[in-house]
């Protein structure tokens, strides 16, 4: 039995999942919330994005279950001796992708390559030759790479895509069957209604996204065992594997930092708006001070401080991974501590509005305590602002991580992250021929992730903030000029 290891960020991530589950349960039971979320569920872009986000979340969950594998007993040791565990901490994802993780080359190689990127001196039949050596793992099964490579890659790609297509078809059939059963319609009818988009939930875009993902996963799976699909980096590590590992860092930064802002923002925002006067002045002063400091500098100052702390107390962390993890954890906490001003300002304004409303006045007249009013009457009614800001901030935090890593105050250099990948790309692009695959992988993963998050976030905002809904672009043809004043009237009605 391997020894389970719980890193700080793991625990927070588990707690976050539990919180999301609790929220989902709560939303399902509350009719108004369920109604609002239904508009999100009906949004095709948001639901397609949710599929992608789901895959990313799954990856980061798999990457958040850490353990130290049991070492095989050394020869000559008594059977009842204490078990020895490896000093390296692995995650479930590491174990699943052991092949690409362990097939380490010497240095750079192009995607799907068979030869190294740089020349080396080799001994060929007694003579020293400078040439591109064969890779140790990438395409190692080929004998004559020049002739066999193209056919082999094409064959495996087709096989992989076919596998992906089968998987996609299975997903379609499963969804159609699950829909057909309760509606008591034949399977064909169910499939047709999905394809003609007559379903309540936009199944067609969801399933198309899932199919694309299935095709991609199938293609990668077929090739990954034999090639480095996205090439290798400077130290010969598989780039695709690193990109996948970076997903967790992005998720942790985005969710943890957002989570860390919430206590400050909610407490200060509501207190300032509720008590007004002195309390309001003090809190406003506090957040003006914080927001007047350029955020990169503020974060840099904090990070330099924790760096000194970590360097001073090396005995607190058992393994390198633990040290890197605590830095990631603290970085997210710092992003939270420095970033609550914006949300607090919004919550203060919202609370100022709410305290003037009749039901709050009534609660006060009934003698409900201040704490009771804030908890029962104010907090639930500002939660939509919190939710909107939280989902909107998530993607900008993921983007921000890359900048911070570049400035040198981001995650630990040993942690895989999009920021560190982009960072190394700076020197790689100036090589000749340029090493572009590292940047490409980071780009593809990051854009997919951030874009999905933004699409999902904008749907959430539209659902919870009626004003935002008026500004969504319509794909329809212009319905004369009558449409505009109508839409305008609707907007101002909501705004009033």
């Amino acid at each position: 039995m391997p020894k389970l290891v719980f890193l700080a960020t793991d625990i927070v991530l588990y707690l976050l999942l539990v919180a999301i589950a609790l929220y989902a349960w709560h939303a399902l039971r509350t009719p108004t919330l369920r109604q609002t979320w239904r508009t999100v569920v009906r949004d095709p872009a948001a639901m397609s994005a949710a599929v992608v986000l789901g895959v990313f979340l799954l990856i980061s969950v798999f990457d958040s279950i850490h353990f130290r594998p049991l070492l095989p007993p050394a020869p000559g040791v008594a059977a009842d001796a204490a078990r020895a565990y490896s000093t390296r901490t692995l995650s479930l994802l590491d174990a699943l992708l052991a092949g690409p993780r362990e097939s380490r080359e010497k240095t750079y190689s192009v995607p799907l390559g068979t030869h190294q990127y740089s020349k080396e001196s080799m001994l060929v039949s007694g003579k020293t030759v400078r040439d591109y050596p064969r890779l140790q793992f990438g395409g190692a099964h080929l004998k004559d790479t020049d002739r066999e490579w193209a056919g082999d890659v094409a064959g495996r790609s087709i096989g992989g895509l076919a596998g992906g297509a089968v998987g996609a078809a299975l997903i379609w059939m499963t969804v159609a069957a699950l829909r057909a059963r309760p509606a008591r319609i034949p399977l064909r009818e169910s499939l047709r209604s999905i394809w003609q988009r007559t379903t309540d939930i936009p199944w067609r875009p969801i399933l198309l996204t899932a199919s694309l993902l299935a095709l991609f996963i199938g293609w990668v799976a077929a090739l990954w065992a034999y090639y480095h699909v996205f090439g290798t980096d400077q130290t010969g590590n598989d780039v695709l594997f690193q990109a996948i590992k970076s997903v967790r860092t992005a998720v942790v930064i985005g969710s943890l930092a957002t989570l860390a802002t919430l206590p400050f923002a909610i407490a200060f925002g509501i207190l300032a708006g509720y008590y007004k006067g002195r309390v309001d002045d003090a809190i406003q002063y506090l957040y003006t001070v914080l927001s007047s400091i350029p955020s990169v500098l503020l974060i840099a100052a904090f990070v330099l401080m924790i760096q000194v702390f970590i360097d001073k107390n090396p005995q607190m962390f058992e393994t390198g991974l633990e040290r890197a993890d605590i830095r990631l954890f603290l970085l997210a906490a710092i992003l939270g501590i420095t970033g609550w001003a914006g949300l607090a300002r919004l919550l203060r304004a919202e609370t100022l509005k709410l305290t003037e409303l009749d039901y709050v006045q009534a609660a006060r007249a009934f003698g409900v305590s201040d704490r009771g009013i804030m908890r029962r009457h104010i907090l639930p009614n500002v939660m939509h602002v919190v939710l909107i800001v939280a989902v909107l901030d998530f993607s900008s935090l993921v983007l921000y991580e890359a900048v911070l890593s570049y400035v040198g105050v981001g995650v630990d250099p040993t942690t895989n992250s999009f920021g560190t990948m982009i960072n190394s790309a700076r020197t790689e692009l100036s090589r000749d021929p340029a090493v572009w695959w590292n940047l490409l992988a980071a780009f593809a993963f990051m854009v997919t992730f951030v874009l999905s998050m933004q699409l999902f976030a904008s749907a959430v905002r539209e659902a919870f903030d009626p004003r935002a809904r008026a500004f969504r672009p319509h794909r329809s043809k212009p319905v004369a000029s009558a449409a505009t004043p109508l839409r305008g009237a609707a907007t101002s009605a909501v705004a009033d």
Partner: protein
Amino acid sequence: MINYIIQRIGYGVLILIGVNIFTFMLFFTVNTPDDMARMNIGGKRVSQDAIEKWKVERGYDKPLFWNEAAPGAEKLTKTIFYDRSVQLFAFDFGPSDSGRDIGYEIRKRMGPSIALAIPTFILGIFVVIVFSLLMVFFRNTYIEFWGFTFAVFLMAISALFYILMGQFLFSRVLKLVPISGFAGGWDLFVFLALPVLIGIVSRLGSEALFYRTMFLEEISKDYVRTARSKGLSETVVLFRHVLRNAMLPILTSTVAVLPLLFLGALIMESFFGIPGLGSYTIDAINAQDFAVVRSMVFVGSALYIVGLILTDISYTVADPRIRLG
């Protein structure tokens, strides 16, 4: 009006004092000067003598707040707090940890920073307004939909990608502009062309969407309906009425960022080798030069506060309905 401005400036000074105390706490009490010395000299086995020497050279050997040994008023002034924190208000930044005069560096580097920031800012506003007005003009058509989609896509890309790909494409492949560097005279245009372009593109997405919302909000107001019912064409309504009225919130919101232009663009400057304040800051962070970081925090927040005051004033100038008092 004058009273109001004085009041705002007083509040600004209060904020600056807060910033100063906060950064002082962060830099000097969370970690002692000894820790900083050890980190700066490097390595774990640093002799106590070397640390003392480092501290004396930089004046960090004094007590933090209260110097018991000094006579009279010097009990307060012969301290690190007075030297490194109070003196900032006189814009006396003192030497950096590597021994150079910070004030001189800041004055010297402000020029290049502004040379990059101002064209980016002005051209950027122009491009954003054109883009978002076009989206509004073609609202409810495919053009708006694709413009919107394009803007959302631009938003999802990290600024670092724009820089790396721009450098690769324009400098390496097309060889149109140098990869990085800075020079005076006509060469300035060659060196700044790419950073300015990238600076505009990297902000285009989010700002165009924001401006679009602002224009759409404006378009739903009564005076626009009146203008239309007078029989004015959509073009006239959009450019003469809506644009002018929407410029008001746009201009007042840009006033806030004007002073911050002096701070320079952090990553842009360091990627393109422009010797401005942004690259100065990044170098200081990498070299763990706390004195420079502290000074830049002070300058940055001072400029932010100037921006806040300017915003308040510009509201009254632009909109006579707002009275301050």
